[in-house]
């Protein structure tokens, strides 16, 4: 299990705090210090999506282990709730960031870990 966690951290950006590898208290990169942005894209609009309360748990899991598959599933769930009042969105984009700190000043900056863009026609017809 712990070796599997090592692989997930290396290959899929799992937070070292998670996954049962005993990496707690070894890095500032816990899932709670990560964040994501979800955006609905249409030809004329770019709308930032709020994460609804019922998807907060899914968002936490996506932050801890932002695999492409997990982010696509999360985008599909968001797509079903995306506002369609102005213009129907064509795609949902999700960017996951980790917080890094300057070695000397500790000033934080974001490092993009993973991005996906899901076409909505695929989202609505996909599994």
């Amino acid at each position: 299990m712990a070796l599997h966690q090592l692989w997930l951290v290396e290959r899929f950006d799992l937070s070292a705090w998670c996954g049962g590898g005993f990496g707690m208290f070894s890095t500032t990169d816990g899932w709670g210090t990560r964040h994501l942005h979800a955006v609905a894209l249409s030809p004329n609009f770019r709308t930032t999506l709020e994460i609804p309360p019922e998807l907060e748990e899914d968002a936490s899991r996506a932050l801890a282990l932002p695999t492409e598959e997990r982010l696509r599933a999360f985008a599909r769930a968001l797509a079903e709730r995306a506002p369609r009042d102005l213009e129907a969105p064509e795609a949902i984009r999700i960017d996951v960031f980790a917080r890094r700190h300057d070695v000397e000043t500790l000033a934080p900056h974001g490092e993009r870990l993973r991005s996906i863009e899901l076409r909505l026609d695929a989202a609505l017809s996909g599994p």
Partner: protein
Amino acid sequence: MTLALRLTLVALLLHPIGSGMLRPAFLALAVAGLVLPRVLHHPALWLALAALAGGRVVAGWPLADNHAYLLAYWALAAGLSLLAPDPSRALAWNGRALVALAFAFAAFWKLLSPDYLDGRFFRVTLVEDRRFERLATTLGGIDADSLLERRAFVSQHADGREPGRDAAPEPARLRALALAATWLTLALEAAVALAFLAPLGGRDWLRHVLLLSFCATTYAVAPVAGFGWLLLAMGASQCAADARRTRFAYVGTFTLLVFYAGLAVRSSPW
């Protein structure tokens, strides 16, 4: 062996875990084991606990804390050991292996992590994590206002490398405290791992001294008493039946962590 099993169940009662139906199920099994001596030594109790703990890990994947995994391993080890011809010896072997591996992986991750080795982890954590507030202000010499200012600085939202707000200067004492915490934690974890991995011959007492020292010092600061209780139960499984002083030391340290946990709740800003 009985002490190790009892401490595990007491830990489950002191810090109830799980959500939904899992929580009462954990509590009911813990109470049954503590109240009924025959149940305490029955493999079914421990295999049921292992199943619940494993289910908790799976349901929470990948968010479960490390001690959720350790509890599942330990309960499974207890259940299987109770089926072995010499349960005490089997449980002691498993307890030793689990402590060794948990500490070895913990030390390994710290060695692997650049932002741990250069001190950034504790420099950030001491100001950002409210549970370390008392340590930062008392030993780190940072006043409450500066602490709040630095907390806002290190935790500000950033998508890229855009310039953010300014910060109050980092006191030299706080930085020294972070470096001391960095290396002391790593040294102690590595020492425990080595002591539990290596054949020590007649120097088995060294394992107890290191593990008890780790728990008595680390959990005065780190707010994860549940993990400490589990480690102490595993350590207690190493005690020979006639090692009364060592057993007493484990019970005493377990109780000390109860007080640490109580103080942490009292001083919590929430």
